[in-house]
């Protein structure tokens, strides 16, 4: 069963209290944690894909305009309280295992090494239908 684990970061205070404002050793510890975490997922044979996304400042929303040409606006959705910071796709035995992995990611260390306990949205990737219909 494949799941997408989406890591959401709070948008409020992103620029004045976000990861870029942490002391360098805390930032380093966070990055180290993520690298180790991904290495461990590779070793268990569960990692399908992982990507971190560039900050929300550079995000744009695109709609089809005249004759299908891209119409680009700033975004996304300023009212959103959180933004997608990155995601994993894992292939695991069951839902419980996906939750377990999400909880590990959620506890990534933040400022002063305190676990961030970030919300991780867990969504099952669509798959094939069961045998009898």
């Amino acid at each position, binding site marked *: 069963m*494949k799941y997408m684990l989406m890591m959401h970061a709070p948008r409020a205070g992103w620029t004045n209290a976000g990861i870029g404002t942490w002391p360098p050793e805390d930032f380093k510890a966070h990055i180290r944690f993520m690298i180790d975490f991904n290495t461990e997922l*590779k*070793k*268990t*044979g*569960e*990692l*399908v*894909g992982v990507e971190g996304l560039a900050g929300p400042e550079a995000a744009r929303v695109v709609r089809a305009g005249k004759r299908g040409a891209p119409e680009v606006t700033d975004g996304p959705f300023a009212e959103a309280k959180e933004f997608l910071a990155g995601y994993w796709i894992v*292939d*695991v*035995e069951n839902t419980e295992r996906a939750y377990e992995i999400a909880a590990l990611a959620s506890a990534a260390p933040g400022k002063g090494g305190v676990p961030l306990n970030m919300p991780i949205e867990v969504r*099952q*990737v*669509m*798959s*094939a*239908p*069961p*045998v*009898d*219909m």
Partner: protein
Amino acid sequence: MTEPSRDYTGEHLLRDLAPQVLGAVVRRFGDFSAAEDAVQEALLAAAVQWPEQGVPDNPRGWLIQVAARRMIDHIRSELARRRRDAVVLMHEPPELQVVPAPDDPVHTSLESTFGSAGSARESERDDTLILLFMCCHPALTRPSAIALTLRAVGGLTTAEIANAFLVPEATMAQRISRAKERIRSSGVPFRLPTDRERAERLGAVLHVLYLIFNEGYVSSVGPALQRSDLANEAIRLTRGVHNLLDADGEVAGLLALMLLTDARRLARTGPEGELIPLAEQDRALWDRRAIAEGVALISDALPRGAVGPYQLQAAIAALHDEAARAADTDWPQILALYGLLKRMSDNPMVSLNHAIAAAMVNGPAAGLELLTSLDADKRMAGHYRLDAVRAHLLEMAGDHQAAITHYQAAAGATTSIPERNYLTTKAARLVAGPKGL
């Protein structure tokens, strides 16, 4: 069934030999993990050389020799590494730890595997079974057991397995080596399970084969069509187990179930990959040969006693397959079989199918009545299948409004795209009324 490639025979010969060769190499060298790698290399070498140079007279002996040579290379480099360590650590000579003693039973069996004597047959037979029991060991997670079985017993490459499960090759490689590590650390001996553990362990093997079949069968829709190879592979492996244990009714039952289900594969989806329910399938597309084989297997197994869930499911599949038209389906018999199955296994999915059969025999109200007991089942709470079946029975009962609600709920909760499209279409047709049908 059409043969998928012109290398069919050669490839299948290789894959049939894979577990025998691996068994022989493990018996000789005792290191399952390294032996498995060595056999993979030998299989790859054969896949390259045989088409050019022709299949050797003794293909099995050829593969064992090539794999053994790889093993010896591996052991030499291990020894060299340990010797380097030993200089520092003053360990005992490493040879003592690696090379089996001359009176070790592995040597005797090695002679028999290399020779063409009839005595070899027994150990070959056992080797394939031992490997299956090992790869499907309960200590492994299901995804690991599936991957290891396909590689070590099925002779598929890591890349092929990764493709079939749509994960990166590196991930699959890790999953397989993790599984081998797990087998090593849990000290699973290379021998058949004892009589006491046998039933449970065989159950685990059959479950893994069933999962491989499902993975291939259910995903053989639309763009994922090539994955149906997994269903063929599961049938091939189960046929192998059936040949080795032909007196076992559940093995025969599982093989029959696969054949009888797979026979409907072509009729199961439309040109756009859309699902076509059993009642609406074009039965001319069903594979008559597979049905005949499945029916013969299950007819032979059932009267022999010790009827298990796979045999019952195969018997149900046979009743569906034998009906010339959907209206000819022997639902009373199917209802009786689901009743037996329900007593045998506490699986809510069985109860769900039992309710459908009850509706077909005694009318939708009887089916809906049975569904109410599932509402309290925690395992079914909010499960889309319960909504889908309820919607279907409500539609049968003529309560279209309620049917729409449940079709939509089911469509929102399923994790399958073809199934979501199917359920959404069902709801949309009812919303549109008779014009939309």
